[in-house]
């Protein structure tokens, strides 16, 4: 097990290293994206551009620039080009909003997905199943930002059910925190409720034909016990796997659309601003932040598998 952990952690570091290099290269190798020229302004003379370059250390060779940037990230001193703000601090400031949004949405999406998937599976082919199937199909076919805009228009503007405005810290005002987040939570959850409930439904329908279910019935368990303890529990394994991966993606940048439309000042909103001003340091910071969570949750899922299934620990075969 120790070797497995070490191998996975090394892999994690390698992937993060590769990602930081790629983001760095995207913004340095692509033509006409010289940051100094952009910061110096449209009609700057070459001398000014050269001075800006020297100020930002952009006249150094690429590997040196890269190392400087990485050192600044780890010592928390990375400054953005455009507004001269501390990138690490800005990301850190966005963490409460992003995590409030993502964790709340994750609770809603798992709860609703299990409920809908379970209802669909036990009423397979009947009206409940069809209605839920249509709902989840519509859910996965909807642009998230569009749903956010429509909910914002109808529920906060037309009937003023929810307050407008941005993120309210939990420590300041818990009621305000929740009431400002209900719409974003649901918006972010809809897509995943659709995916997960459909997946749970088909997993449960497959599991219902398994021998262990027949055995459970044969030993006299009630239908309810069979469904919940045997069918549902076994059908949840792939869902939990997927949850780990998706939660990483959502924290690592998937919430950017929801944060943008609802104006929640989280990491996603910060990333959006950085992208619009083509500011490399915040982009590297945010991408590494996002990739860290994606890789972290991938690794947690792998660990969970390794604990459950010794074959993975010993061999190379990863679950597909």
């Amino acid at each position, binding site marked *: 097990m120790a070797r497995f952990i070490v191998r996975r952690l090394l892999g994690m570091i390698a*992937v993060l290293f590769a*990602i930081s290099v790629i983001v760095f290269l995207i913004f340095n190798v692509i033509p006409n994206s010289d940051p100094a020229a952009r910061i110096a302004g449209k009609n700057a003379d070459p001398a000014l551009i050269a001075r800006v370059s020297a100020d930002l250390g952009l006249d150094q060779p690429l590997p040196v620039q890269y190392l400087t940037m990485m050192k600044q990230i780890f010592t928390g001193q990375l400054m953005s080009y455009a507004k001269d703000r501390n990138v690490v601090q800005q990301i850190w400031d966005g963490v409460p909003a992003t995590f409030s949004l993502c964790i709340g949405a994750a609770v809603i999406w798992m709860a609703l997905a299990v409920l809908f998937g379970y209802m669909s599976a036990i009423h397979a082919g009947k009206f409940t199943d069809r209605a839920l199937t249509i709902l989840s199909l519509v859910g996965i076919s909807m642009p998230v930002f569009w749903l956010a805009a429509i909910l914002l228009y109808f529920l906060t503007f037309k009937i003023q059910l929810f307050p407008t405005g941005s993120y309210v810290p939990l420590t300041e005002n818990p009621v305000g925190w929740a009431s400002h987040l209900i719409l974003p939570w649901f918006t972010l959850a809809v897509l995943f409720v659709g995916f997960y409930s459909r997946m749970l439904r088909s997993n449960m329908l497959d599991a219902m034909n398994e021998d262990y279910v027949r055995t459970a019935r044969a030993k006299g368990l009630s239908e309810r016990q069979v469904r919940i303890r045997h069918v549902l529990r076994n059908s949840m394994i792939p869902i939990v796997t997927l949850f780990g991966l998706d939660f990483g993606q959502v924290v690592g*940048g998937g919430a*950017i*659309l929801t944060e943008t439309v609802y104006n929640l000042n989280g990491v996603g909103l910060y990333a959006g601003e950085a992208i*619009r001003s*083509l500011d490399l340091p915040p982009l590297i910071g945010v991408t590494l932040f*996002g990739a860290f969570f*994606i890789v972290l949750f991938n690794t947690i899922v792998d660990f969970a598998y390794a604990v459950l299934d010794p074959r993975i620990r010993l061999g190379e075969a990863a679950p*597909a």
Partner: protein
Amino acid sequence: MVVPVGELEVPGEPPLPTGVPASQIQGRNPWYLAWLRLRRNKVALVCGAVFVLIVLFCLAAPLWAEHVAHTGPNENHITEKVVIDGQPTNVVAPDGTPIGPGLHGQYLLGADQNGRDVMVRLMYGGRTSIYIGLAAAAVTTVLSVIVALLAGYYRGWIDSVLSRIMDVIWAFPVLLLGIALGTALAIGGLKIGPLAIAGDSIWIPIMIIGFVYVPYMARPIRGEILALREKEFIEAAVAQGKGPLRIMFSELLPNIISTIIVFFTLNIANNMLLESALSFLGAGVRPPNASWGTMIADGYEMIYTAPHLTIVPGLMIIATVLSLNVFGDGLRDALDPRAKIRLEH
């Protein structure tokens, strides 16, 4: 496509004829069987038809623009008046509110803040959105199949290298990667050898969207190739002295074609959603070109005064993506009734 005899008895498939001499039973190839299964899935067929109708609707854009609306998709009419119910009306009122939807040939779906005809833009925007969805799906499919064939056929270090590259792309936040590439490429365009793409070309979002979804498609196909690689018919092909390329393209590829078709269909739907998201964030289709995503982005600025600008293109996206998703699911059930091909989002 190899279908062993015993596997033909599949639930949901028409039964083999009984009481007929064996010599008179016609052979039915797998494609025909798939078609028979698909034909029974009325919902999927209707959704396929809806998608075709939406495509036709968008293809008719120049006709509508010329004969009904008398304006192009990017023409501003901000200071003009148009006659509605015999009354000359401002296309965009002095307070900035554009004409709303109504039963008039011009501005059937109203105008936007620049006095552009929303109906015309919707039709032209649909062409862009669907075109990007299809072209990006083609890019993803070609790249994934090549990666999967190489990794699955050669295995060993080639597989390791390709899989690690896929891991890295996989670990990228999809939206952030898309936006970062979109913004960076929009400035200078893209030059790969002889291939040059201008910064405002729709091939930029096509390449980006096609690229970011490669691991999601290449991984499951690679798994399938790895399994096929162990089968006897590949051994036989090797023994016959067939080269790697021939084995890959004439032995392995035909066996994964049904998977590819299903992935391709569902991928179009995903691509259209990603295109709309990138365009909404300003990293996809460049203005003044219309796509459904840019229309929502433009409309969202005026959501409190002219909500139809946001609502209408969104409904078109939902209709298109939904019909593709349902049709794709139907195709999967028809082509591969027992296998579980799943394209993770």
